């Protein structure tokens, strides 16, 4: 974890086991990851996609040589549509882990929190039933969205569903929010692109960290989920 990204780890949730990833590694199989959602459309100014960065970090952290990340992100897609498509992709790609960035498009399209929660809950249950681990990647951060009650509600809904289903959620919004608070003091001149790119670079690290902890958390006793914090009041 780079020094710049380290403060954001305060916003990441505790370890949840990834038994199917651990089993793949234990069997010496190629670790197959299906990436779906909004983030795969992002590349850094200096090249290197989000998924390529995760792959490189997992190689280093897990000491495995064979990792294959398949990118099937469709930008602008709502969770419900992604869920339908994901089932086909799981059948075709046979991943051990699905990396699902979810929520931002639903929040921007004003999908109700109840519908959103049900979609994520059903999809996580389906993945578990098919012996596929999942890491949810939460909503993207923009300081302006703190004033949007619906956006904040979906952010917290995702966190609540993840806790209820005992799956990892990388709380991207909160992590970048912490990073930006640090930026305000240290780098007031950082523009939105720099902030955003820094956020995505850190996101790769957070995801790689979550997967690594999930692999080694396989023997941990099951922890009760941490209750979600109350949503901040819209300003």
């Amino acid at each position, binding site marked *: 974890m780079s020094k710049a990204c380290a403060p954001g780890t305060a916003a990441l949730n505790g370890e949840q086991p990834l038994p199917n990833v651990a089993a793949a590694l234990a069997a010496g199989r190629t670790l197959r990851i299906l990436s779906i959602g909004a983030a795969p459309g992002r590349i850094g100014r200096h090249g290197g*996609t989000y998924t390529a960065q995760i792959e490189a970090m997992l190689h280093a952290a897990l000491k495995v040589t064979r990792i294959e990340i398949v*990118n*099937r992100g469709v930008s602008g897609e709502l969770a419900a549509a992604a869920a339908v498509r994901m089932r086909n992709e799981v059948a075709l790609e046979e991943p051990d882990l699905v990396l699902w960035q979810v929520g931002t498009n639903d929040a921007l399209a004003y999908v109700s929190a109840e519908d959103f929660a049900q979609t994520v809950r059903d999809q996580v249950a389906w993945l578990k039933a098919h012996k596929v681990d999942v890491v949810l990647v939460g909503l993207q951060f923009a300081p302006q969205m703190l004033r949007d009650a619906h956006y904040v509600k979906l952010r917290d809904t995702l966190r609540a569903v993840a806790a209820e289903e005992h799956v990892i959620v990388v709380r991207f919004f909160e992590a970048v929010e912490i990073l930006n608070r640090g930026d305000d003091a240290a780098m007031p001149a950082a523009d939105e692109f720099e902030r955003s790119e820094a956020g995505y670079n850190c996101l790769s690290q957070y995801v790689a960290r979550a997967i690594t902890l999930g692999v080694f958390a396989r023997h941990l006793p099951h922890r009760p989920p941490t209750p979600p914090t109350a949503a901040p009041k819209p300003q």
Partner: protein
Amino acid sequence: MTRAPNAVDFWRGFALITIFIDHIPGLVYASYTLANFSIADAADLFVFLAGWSLRLMAEGRGEKRPIRDVMLRLFGRALELYAAQVLITMLAIAVLAVSATELDNPLLLQWHNAAAVFSDPVPTHIGLVLLTHQLGYFDILPLYVVLMLMAPFFALIDRVAPALLVPVSLAIYVCVLAFRLTLPTWPVAGTWFFNPLAWQTVFVLGFACADPGRGIGAFARRNIKWLRIVGVPIVIAGLLIHLFDLWPDPTKVPNPKLFFIADKTFDTPMRLIQFLSLVAVFSFAWPYIRKAAGAPVWGRGVEALIGFLAMLGRNSLYVFCIGSLLSLSAQVVRLYYRGSVGSDTAVVLIGIVIMAFTAWLAESRQRGRPAPASPAPRSSSR
């Protein structure tokens, strides 16, 4: 002078409005489009009718055009589509940039695959020009460009060995499904949302069905009653699958799985067969719709609707382009007004009015010119 309303233009107008609505995620009216009641959706209809229109381009009216003229004409059309795609992509990027600035919301710069355009513009602009980087919901025209580049090949087969047209297309389709062949995206690694190697099948089937004198076009006309009898239960099955979530578990089907699952990217057989059933079943509708235009009470309304949709269909490229930009703009408006029923109604109505104005404007240039070739004689027989 513009051509009279016909079935192809009417249904193409219907497809254009449906695509406009489908491309506004979260819109309350998007729950009532074809995609909610059928495995196939308006994209299948749009591509099928594009293939149908290819027949007219390839053969013209009366005597057949020389094959060299056909090739040049089709290649010219592909260039026209390509230019349209580049133009609307640039306008869409501008819409996102302006919206992000005016709404003070940097998330909009990352919407719909635009993040790479702003964060890494050098390779991404090359990708935009090569069509290997496509914005979300701006991915149908790239498909159409590739189909039109393939069109001379299919037109040539149709001219020299017409019996091979559909078998060649199906052979490509089977290989694509069996080996999961597709086109990659770049610089963001991925695949095309609409795989042209698979979607060429519905395009070629439209081309073949438009020929009333031979092949499957003649077969379909001779046996349309039987095709409808077979098609009705398939259409109903598609409806039930949607309504009661009866989708087969894709992990449980045999290999090669693409032959047995419903997938839009590869326009898989489940989707294609259901779409062809829809065409067979609803092909009865056009003569009745025309007849209804003569009804004493609501005939005028039906006539106006026919004229309206046919006008959109006659100017499909312009209307499609403006519709794509309107869908994106509507998403921004929904974001601003927080997706209320009122704002949803307003964006749909205003969008349709602007699409109609676009078609009217395009036709105003043609007034006074002689009438172009019409696909009506072929299409109206269905």
